[in-house]
């Protein structure tokens, strides 16, 4: 099922958003999701649907523990963060996505969140 993506304009650091724009094509050919980010503004018009959005939802969980990143990490606005959390929980309970870790197929996805791990 094709989902509509409306990309809203961006302000702020052009270099960063340029890099973000280049890197954000997901490996899954069905869903083309480009998330724009500008400082703390996250304009993102898309309905978070059910089972087909697994690569999108896996971008917002930790690869080590599988916990969903908070708002200060993802930079999403209130509504979308809530939608993503609810969708992730739903998909995990239904048995499509693992809970304690990130599905290894999606480990190489471009990073959307602000998280920094100690090396």
């Amino acid at each position, binding site marked *: 099922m094709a989902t509509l993506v409306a990309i809203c304009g961006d302000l702020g650091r052009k270099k960063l958003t340029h890099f973000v724009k280049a890197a954000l094509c997901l490996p899954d050919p069905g869903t083309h999701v480009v998330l724009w980010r500008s400082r703390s503004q996250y*304009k993102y*018009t898309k309905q978070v649907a059910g089972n087909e959005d697994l690569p999108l939802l896996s971008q917002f969980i930790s690869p080590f523990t599988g916990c969903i990143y908070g708002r200060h990490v993802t930079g999403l*606005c209130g509504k*979308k963060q809530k939608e993503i959390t609810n969708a992730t929980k739903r998909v995990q309970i*239904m048995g499509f996505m693992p809970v304690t870790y990130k599905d290894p197929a999606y480990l190489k996805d471009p990073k959307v969140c602000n998280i920094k791990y100690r090396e």
Partner: protein
Amino acid sequence: MKTKKQPETAAALKRTVEALMDRGAIVRNLENLGDRTLPYKISSHSQRHSRGGYFLVDFYAPATAVESIMEHLSRDIDVIRPNVVKHPLTQEVKECEGIVPVPLEEKLYSTKKRK
């Protein structure tokens, strides 16, 4: 969406669809999402499952029928995890304006009237 196991899936599917239709549901579409290892081992009906087949049934049904459908599916041994979800395409897509910048200076002092 349900997850099933065992080679008698055709019979189980038929049973399920018939049960759905008995409760007044009009089945639009039945998709097979493939057989795969479950993301985590699921125990149901005193059995531990690690592989399952995923099936997606599109149907129209009155809202009152959901409870009886779920009850029936939970009794079926072949169904590992029954789920009924609203169809995502029927929900309205609202425009999200992003994070609206709030003027924090106004929020610094409370504007309540103090005696």
